[in-house]
């Protein structure tokens, strides 16, 4: 019974000493890493994905018994049982580690072996339990796994969430049913702060359940941004409070909508996993579905001086357009708590604008000449200003920069065109704008075989530029566009292929050994399958 009281005890002196030694060993490990031997440290961590900054593991085994293990708060932690994010995470990770079965309390068949009975969590600064994660959230953590009490230390809850995932990956269940973990010391933090997955709910509707499942899998891979490309030409499933006709008329059907409650569920579920929800309302192109529920928002196209009955991009010349957008984005800014809104701006087809006499007239008045890029810039600038006025920041697709719009400083540019994307990165960062990389990570473009190696081998900073420019690369996103993807095939297409991107964005730059990655990723995918994510195989095996 003495063992059960550790929560209230201080670390015994011996353990403190061990902890101190651990730190020394970690430093040694770091030295080795610098000496270009990542293989050695990696081979000891066959279970970890993505690989931590440093992980030192000893051969010494600690035994866990499900009936006699719990997560708890350190007395010195700034977070306690009132921190819902942590309480929920404790319950989740207990189930991931031990399964959902009931275990007998104190099955003491490993009496003489070194036990691991508790993971004590300590948050050092204001824990941010009730906040939303942001681009600046601190996700670093230290994890010291030793018997009988392991410790997980982080500045904020976000680091604790990442550390819990790592902790769960260290625990191994033997075929005999015994759970063990190697004594370890892990120091970890992400390489890039923006690590996203883009889902597209317009080409095909994804049920909320599928989105939540995706958030689970994202947390297993330490992703922290769900880029929700919520509407597009094909359908408008977002149910707006201000403009309910948008989804009433623009969704595939009335059962193919996301109600305010659905959106809230997704945002909150994501928050509990340290994941930001970045909404994208792409305009002025990709908006065909908007026209059904909002009169006059789209440009009427003309055919030999008569309206042809078809519509093009958003009509940039009407005041009504901007008052509509301003109300809509005001709502979006409230419904989605993230600091960023994605404004799209990609693939605007100028043909319809060119055909419309009123648009041409407007162009002349504004002195845009024949440069429709200027018209698009004019439009984008207006929308960008709306977002700034709301004290939010904007993300746009790369065309908005290509078209030489006066971009508000601080606007983030997302690079998606694969052709010469490194050159593009150099240009945009040279102009001082932060960037997100997606170009090499369009996971909807499938091919036969082990295509994950291609995603894995991308080095985001492999372009000519100053250190300052490189710092402007805030991360990347794996995109799974929805033309051929719905709830039937989303999960196996995303995982474990997106995991490759997950490690590229989290782990150190020189974690690039494909053989080692293959071994770890194979185990990681089996772990995901065990946790209910239908992640497809990398290659033959079981």
């Amino acid at each position, binding site marked *: 019974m003495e063992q059960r009281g550790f929560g209230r005890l201080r670390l015994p002196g011996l353990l403190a000493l061990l902890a101190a030694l651990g730190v020394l060993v970690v430093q040694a490990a770091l030295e080795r890493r610098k000496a270009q031997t990542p293989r050695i440290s990696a081979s000891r961590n066959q279970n970890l994905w993505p690989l931590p900054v440093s992980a030192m593991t000893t051969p010494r085994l600690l035994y866990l018994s499900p009936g006699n293990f719990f997560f708890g708060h350190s007395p010195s932690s700034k977070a306690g049982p009132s921190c819902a994010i942590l309480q929920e995470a404790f319950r989740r990770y207990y189930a991931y580690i031990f399964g959902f079965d009931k275990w007998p309390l104190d099955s003491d068949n490993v009496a003489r072996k070194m036990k691991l009975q508790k993971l004590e969590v300590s948050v050092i600064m204001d824990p941010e339990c009730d906040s939303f994660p942001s681009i600046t959230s601190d996700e670093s953590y230290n994890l010291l796994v030793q018997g009988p009490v392991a410790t997980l230390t982080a500045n904020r809850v976000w680091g604790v969430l990442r550390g819990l995932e790592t902790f769960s990956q260290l625990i191994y269940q033997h075929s005999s049913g015994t759970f063990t973990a190697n004594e370890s010391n892990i120091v970890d933090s992400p390489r890039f702060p923006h690590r996203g997955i883009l889902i597209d709910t317009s*080409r*095909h*509707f994804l*049920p909320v*359940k*599928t989105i939540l*499942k995706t958030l689970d899998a994202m947390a297993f891979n330490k992703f922290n941004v769900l880029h929700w490309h919520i509407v597009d030409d*094909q*359908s408008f499933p977002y149910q707006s409070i201000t403009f309910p006709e948008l989804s009433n008329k623009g969704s*595939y*059907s009335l*059962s*193919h909508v996301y109600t305010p409650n659905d959106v809230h569920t997704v945002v909150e579920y994501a928050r509990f996993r340290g994941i930001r929800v970045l909404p994208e309302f792409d305009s002025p192109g990709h908006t065909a579905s908007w026209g059904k529920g909002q009169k006059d928002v789209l440009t009427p196209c003309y055919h030999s001086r008569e309206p042809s009955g078809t519509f093009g991009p958003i009509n940039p010349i009407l005041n009504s357009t901007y008052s509509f957008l301003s109300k809509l984005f005001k709502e979006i800014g409230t419904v989605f708590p993230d600091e960023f809104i994605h404004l799209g701006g990609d693939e605007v087809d100028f043909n319809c604008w060119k055909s419309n006499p009123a648009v041409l007239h407007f162009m002349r008045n504004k002195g845009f000449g024949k440069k429709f890029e200027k018209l698009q810039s004019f439009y984008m600038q207006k929308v960008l200003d709306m977002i700034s006025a709301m004290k939010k920041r904007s993300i746009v697709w790369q065309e908005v920069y290509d078209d030489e719009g006066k971009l508000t400083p601080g606007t983030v540019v997302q690079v998606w065109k694969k052709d010469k994307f490194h050159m593009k990165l150099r240009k945009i960062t040279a102009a001082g704008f932060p960037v997100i990389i997606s170009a090499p990570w369009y996971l*909807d*473009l*499938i*091919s*036969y*075989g*082990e295509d994950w190696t291609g995603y894995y081998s991308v080095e985001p900073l492999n372009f000519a530029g100053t250190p300052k420019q490189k710092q402007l690369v805030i991360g990347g996103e794996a995109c799974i566009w*929805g*033309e*051929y*993807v*719905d*709830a*039937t*095939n989303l*999960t*196996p*297409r995303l995982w474990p292929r997106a995991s490759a991107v997950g490690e590229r964005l989290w782990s150190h730059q020189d974690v690039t050994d494909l053989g080692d990655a293959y071994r770890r990723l194979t185990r990681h995918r089996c772990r995901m*399958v065990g946790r209910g994510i*239908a*992640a*497809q*195989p*990398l*290659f*033959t*095996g*079981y």
Partner: protein
Amino acid sequence: MAGSTLRFSLLLAAAFAGRATALWPWPQYIQTSELRYTIFPHSFQFQYHLSSAAQVGCSVLDEAFQRYRDLLFGSAAFRFPHPIEKRHTSEKNSLVVLVVTPGCDQFPSLGSVENYTLTINDEQCLLLSETVWGALRGLETFSQLIWRSPEGTFYVNKTDIEDFPRFPHRGLLLDTSRHYLPLSSILDTLDVMAYNKFNVFHWHLVDDSSFPYESFTFPDLTKKGSYNPATHIYTAQDVKEVIEYARLRGIRVLAEFDTPGHTLSWGPGVPGLLTPCYSGSHPSGTFGPVNPALNNTYEFMSTFFLEISTVFPDFYLHLGGDEVDFTCWKSNPDIQAFMKKKGFGDDFKKLESFYIQTLLDIVSAYGKGYVVWQEVFDNKVKVRPDTIIQVWREEIPVKYVKEMALVTSAGFRALLSAPWYLNHITYGPDWKEIYLVEPLAFEGSPEQKALVIGGEACMWGEYVDSTNLVPRLWPKAGAVAERLWSNKMVSNLDFAFKRLAHFRCELLRRGVQAQPLSVGYCDMEFEQT
């Protein structure tokens, strides 16, 4: 009143237009009308005609009736129709099934007749078929004819269908060696095959990677050759279940035990079976194909295939014979000596022929026919004239179209798979290319064309397991199914797209995780469990 009737028939036309596109694969002959009959789930029955050779107690049809009742009406509670609706349409309260030839307990075979006619008019609602297998195909068609109004009422339109398959062998290959597929995945696949009128499950049971088939004569094969001898195996009971489940759906199980190559997983369980490879003058510790120089090999094969011949009731076995790598044989001094003794010179194809011929003789003696991959033909192995050659190579040694001509001009029956490797995924609507394949588009006489008995869609398992099998298979394999069932003239892509998109939504409704063809939606989307 006249005005309201007119409006009503316009509505009917709209509803009908939606429904007529729903058939997959498209029948040989169909005539439908806008006249519709109401079906009340609580009173509707499948019945045997008094003069039908199959009656209550016919396992194949009794179970099919139950299946299709569930598929059509589910377990939902049904309200009685609105009285106004009732006035306008007459009711059909049964589908009467008349089977001409008895035979409910047999297995389907290559020669099974699958013809049926479906007559739904004022006088009757009748499914007539030569055999129970034809009745199964007709039941599937009938289930696709029934549609539901937005108010929830079920209808079937006045329809005449006369249908039969274009090819008798319409197969789907699953590979359970590269990845183990749980029994439930296989059974679920058999269900969807039946929806698509496929009739052969080609079970590529074992390969280099693992040996999940539990042999009772050689239990060590599985014990040492499976991924996990406790969980990743097919027991005798599993195999029986697959065969019976398939039979009840009119599907043959064609078992493949591929030799002499693709056999690494056989080695640990049968010492001495595989050829030891040499590096210089010493065994390198690695193994190659089955060792064709030892008598023991043939004794083993003889016993093993006796078991296989008994376990799998189909007349045909698939003996593989593809991709034999000669390097290991070349390196082994005993094989070299054997070659010299037999006078094969340096021609290892002759050695391969020797092995295959001996094996074929063994299997023939058990009263079985066989299917082999095209290499056996390419390498000029002397085989019995009734051997079926499966063409799988797209380009090499010749284009598959040419290979079809070669195989049939040599008088052999041919199966086409080359353009239908569904595991080769690409971005976009790749079902179209699969759909547009014309199996008889090779130069040859009518007699040669008659030797093409069908084809198979193949889902090899290097990158496929139960996590992604279903969406990769469906509805893509449906494109192959229609090509093999429907008339050659049915090849319009727009017509196919409309029906296949509709059919995939029907698959979702039936609980099949079939992936989308393009943008859009289904009333009932797939829900994560």
